């Protein structure tokens, strides 16, 4: 691993030692530093703490919050809660996948611009169906509105 990454891991490890952390808190901190859970980081941390890598993966794959792959620049969250479901969330989701040209099982576009994820409920049931891009909420969505909304994002110059 490169030295900036090692420094980050050292600081995560120090915090764990000092405040009595756990596997979950280690993974949360790693993800905060890297944006996802890199394989190298898990193996490094496993060597340092003596906790088997399998336990890290056991926990990381258990919770929806942990990502084992780098994520896209823009996070598109399609709410698939009950209220959104009965108001047509599935058709919105299908259109999102089409527009982003995602294969089944693929979550992040090849250019790294977008990651599409489903969420059970964002608590905005009153304006269902709901799509969130980064932190902006789009209510009363329909398949037709998808291209316009995605057009506002993506392929922007690096910030």
């Amino acid at each position, binding site marked *: 691993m490169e030295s900036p990454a090692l420094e980050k891991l050292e600081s995560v490890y120090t915090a764990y030692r000092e405040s009595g*952390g*756990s*596997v*979950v*808190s280690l*993974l*949360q901190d790693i993800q905060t530093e890297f944006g996802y859970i890199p394989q190298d980081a898990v193996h490094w941390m496993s060597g340092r703490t003596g906790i088997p890598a399998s336990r890290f993966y*056991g*926990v990381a794959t*258990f*919770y*929806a*919050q*942990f990502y084992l792959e780098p994520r896209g620049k823009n996070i598109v969250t399609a709410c*698939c*809660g*009950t*209220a959104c*479901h*009965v*108001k047509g969330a599935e*058709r919105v989701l*299908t*259109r999102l996948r*089409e527009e982003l040209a995602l294969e089944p099982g693929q979550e992040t576009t090849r250019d790294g611009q977008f990651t599409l994820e489903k*969420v*059970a*409920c*964002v*608590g*905005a*049931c*009153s*304006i*269902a169906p*709901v799509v969130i891009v980064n932190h902006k*909420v*789009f*209510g009363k969505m329909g*398949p*037709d509105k998808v291209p316009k909304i995605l057009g506002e994002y993506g392929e922007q110059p690096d910030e």
Partner: protein
Amino acid sequence: MVNSRMSKEIVINVCMGTGGIAAGGRDVMDAFIEAFRERGVDGRVEKHCAVHQVGCRGFCARDVLVDVSLDGERTTYQYIQAAMVPRLVEEHVLGGQPVTEWTVGPEYHAFHDRQVKVVLADCGNIDPDRIEEYEGVGGYTALRRILSEMSPGEVIDVVRESGLRGRGGAGFPTGIKWKICADNESEVKYIICNADEGDPGAFMDRSVIEGNPHAVIEGLIIGAYAIGSAHGYVYIRAEYPLAVERLRRALDQARAKGYLGKGIHGSRFDFDIKVKLGAGAFVCGEETALIASIEGERGMPRSKPPFPVFKGLWGKPTVINNVETLANLPVIFRRGAAWYASVGSEKSKGTKVFALTGKIKNTGLIEVPMGISLKEIIYDIGGGIEKDRAFKAVQTGGPSGGCIPSQHIDLSVDYENLIRMGSMMGSGGMVVLDETDCMVNIAKFFLEFTQSESCGKCTPCRFGTRRLLEILTRITRGQGRPDDIERLERMARTIKDSSLCGLGMSAPNPVLSTIRYFRHEYEAHIHEHRCPAGVCRELITYTIDPERCKGCGKCRRHCPVEAIEGQPKAVHVIQQEKCIKCGSCFEVCPEKFSAVLRA
């Protein structure tokens, strides 16, 4: 001219919940600020509830809601957009004449009149980031009185007399849970606030924490005092960043004011609260799984007994209470157990917060007395079904609950009645379904959720939910087998009886309750390969009625796969082999033609 109005106090409140912002709340606010600046009006423009706070005043269907208050006289407007602001400022703020055509109508008042606000009373009215505002409405007085006048035993007695039951879903009496834990001889005990709201379609816990975090904190301190615990946790979803932020700020303020820490308010009682972030797993709402998660492991449940009140976090006696339960406590002590017990039905006391959503006119967050009828909720508060379609059923209790059909609309809503109907209170999601909803599809939707959230520890739930989902999927595809209904029922009962935790035990409820009340829909799918509600894609076809089609071309332009052919002003035709059955044509065909048919 403007100066003559200066003596008046002008306050504008703009609803800025998630719904309010999505409807354009920020633009409306900016428009007011701009209009005031231009005209030199000396008025305050305030967020009615801060950014992202869901629930707000509950009536999100009418966003953007705006209050214009002149000298405390408040007028509420609905559906306000930025372009409408100049007229509001001109005629109402400066001219003193409310713009009556934009004010809220009787439905707005009906929406609020039937509600009884205990937990939500101060949400949206006080600034959650200022402890002084909570104290200003009587906050922390209950705690102070308890610490100076009451023994832990007396506190437990009051809670038992009030009849308060857990709002997390199962409805276990809170006072009894506390008593069992208090009677445990242990040096160390824990109390945990369960804010791991994972039910799709319920968001009241987040709303309470975002709108009034101190009420939850005060409740937790009261509970800790009653059971003799010095350490508390709030286990909250990391997906709720704003709630986490508000909660942490509130805890800091409570510490600074001496409500947390050593020797709270001159007493000999020490207590402090840590925040633990959940990592996104529905099963962690289950007590023992939640404990495993706080301990930093996979959130998997273990068998009970021993119950957490005997052996919980780090092996010590632990009480776990839900957010809404805790938020009730300060009010119970302020207004008395007898008052609380006077609200509600015989066995279910107090109020319940519901997230009212789905095919209903007035969607939003409501708080009603226990025992209120479904009819009152749906028609008086909810304003009836959207587009005046026929009411079909209401789904309560989320993935653990079931559907209550229209013939039981007079049902009085409390813990026992919902269980009797094959559903449950759950955390309080209430999704209204109309004639265009397919009940097999709804059951499948919930099974998709529970199947993917099943932790996999016990076989009945791990395999059972998957098998149920497979069968439901084939039924919705028209491949159901003649004995599938019986197979579903048999398997559902086995899963209920043999699963390790509440997730598995309740996962079959959506299937059983839809079979119980809508068996004919299952039969139509299986025997006739027909989806009566026209939802299941594989079982429907779209065609264009040549008699009615006027060739406007709208369907052709909206079809995402170019499956529709036709010249302008000539009859259009859908090519079935290309059609993906998305339904776009059906929706866009102008009502006056209604030429697209779904069968």
